[in-house]
């Protein structure tokens, strides 16, 4: 028995500049201002389908008509239609709503970005002096923690996990803000004393899947696209070394390629050329810095100071290399 809930009773919300109406509540999102004009192609509808998922294979599948389905075991099945304007959610019985929204604002948002011609970069993003600055890197590298430290110094949060970048003007990449909540592990929430403003996942403390979604920003969320000023490549913090260095050419490209959010999904959607073009444009237009920093959380403010200082003295890549060589570098698709 299948029933499709088309009552889009929640919203409209704003997400990456899109107008979202939903059959499930999305409390992380900010409300779309009724005074704001919108076009039909900016609309996304999230509907709920209550049915057994037995017929749906776990994993990601792009069908021949251009639709996409994604099933996360123990959470939900998600379908995105070929036009990327409808998302159908089929939750598993008893699923933690926060966990479900975590996947909706992660993998599903990345699919929407790919399908709608945006580049989804894995990272957290804050607004520094009117421009967007992204902290990108593998899970556990400390992106959200560093972003939170900067928010506490007065810089608004633009997004966490998926940074939707609009490259329709290649010379001026723009960051489209998502929502000002940050996903943190409990020790970071304790460190920042954010417990009061945090919604926790249902998984027991100390168990995998236990995390909090913290509302860390008292001011109104920013909804308009913001010019992207810099990307910081984060490794897991180690040692006491502090500093930054500019990644050039292929190193910047290779880093961005590795941090395309679910890049393998973009390639499975047949969007190799779009993905390649976006990464190349981004590497050419926006400085990518490697950021070395100390592990200790009590030195986080020093790192934040370094970022603030760097942002005020951003320099574009320069230099000429006249030697002739080819070089293969690591990259590619893991299916």
């Amino acid at each position, binding site marked *: 028995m299948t029933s499709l809930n088309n009552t889009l009773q929640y919203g409209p919300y704003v997400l990456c500049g899109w107008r979202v109406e939903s059959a499930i509540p999305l409390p992380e999102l900010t409300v779309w201002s009724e005074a704001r004009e919108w076009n039909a192609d900016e609309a996304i509808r999230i509907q709920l389908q209550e049915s057994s998922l037995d017929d749906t294979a776990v994993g990601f599948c792009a069908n021949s008509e251009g639709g996409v389905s994604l099933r996360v075991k123990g959470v939900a099945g998600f379908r995105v239609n070929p036009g990327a304007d409808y998302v159908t959610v089929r939750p598993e019985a008893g699923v933690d709503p926060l966990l479900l929204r975590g996947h909706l604002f992660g993998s599903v948002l990345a699919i929407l970005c790919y399908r709608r011609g945006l580049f989804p970069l894995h990272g957290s993003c804050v607004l520094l002096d009117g421009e967007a600055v992204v902290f990108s890197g593998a899970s556990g590298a400390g992106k959200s923690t560093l972003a939170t430290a900067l928010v506490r110094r007065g810089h608004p949060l633009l997004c966490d996990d998926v940074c939707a970048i609009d490259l329709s003007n290649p010379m001026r990449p723009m960051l489209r803000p998502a929502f000002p909540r940050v996903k943190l592990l409990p020790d970071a929430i304790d460190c920042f004393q954010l417990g009061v403003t945090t919604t926790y996942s249902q998984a027991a403390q100390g168990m995998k899947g236990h995390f909090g979604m913290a509302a860390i920003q008292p001011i109104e969320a920013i909804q308009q696209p913001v010019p992207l000023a810099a990307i910081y490549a984060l490794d897991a913090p180690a040692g006491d070394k502090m500093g930054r260095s500019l990644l050039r050419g292929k190193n910047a490209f290779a880093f961005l390629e590795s941090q395309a959010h679910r890049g393998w999904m973009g390639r499975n959607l047949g969007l190799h050329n779009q993905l390649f073009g976006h990464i190349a444009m981004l590497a050419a237009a926006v400085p990518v810095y490697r950021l070395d920093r100390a592990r200790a959380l009590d030195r986080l403010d020093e790192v934040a100071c370094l970022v603030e200082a760097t942002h005020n003295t951003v320099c574009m890549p320069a*230099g000429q*290399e*006249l030697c002739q*060589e080819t070089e*293969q570098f690591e990259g590619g698709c893991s299916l």
Partner: protein
Amino acid sequence: MTDNSLISRREGWIAAWVDNNLIMMHAESSFYLNLTGSGGRIWELLESPCSVWDLCKTLGREFDIEPDAARPEVLAFLDQLLLRKAIDVHLPALA
């Protein structure tokens, strides 16, 4: 490969300049190459198939060196592209 060998790009490669490097990707395999300096210029010149000697003459003009002096490096570079399946080399027709 000789001066008269005709060089053409293989299909399936896309390329973009990043800083002063030309980054190339083979779309199907997601295999990447990074061409620096005049390597990127050679790839641009191969937009239309041309002979090794024509390449040497054009690069000689652009970089202000004798075509004969450019030849060893051009040949070595083309060998690398061939090894990575980025170009095809057509032998000159026998007279």
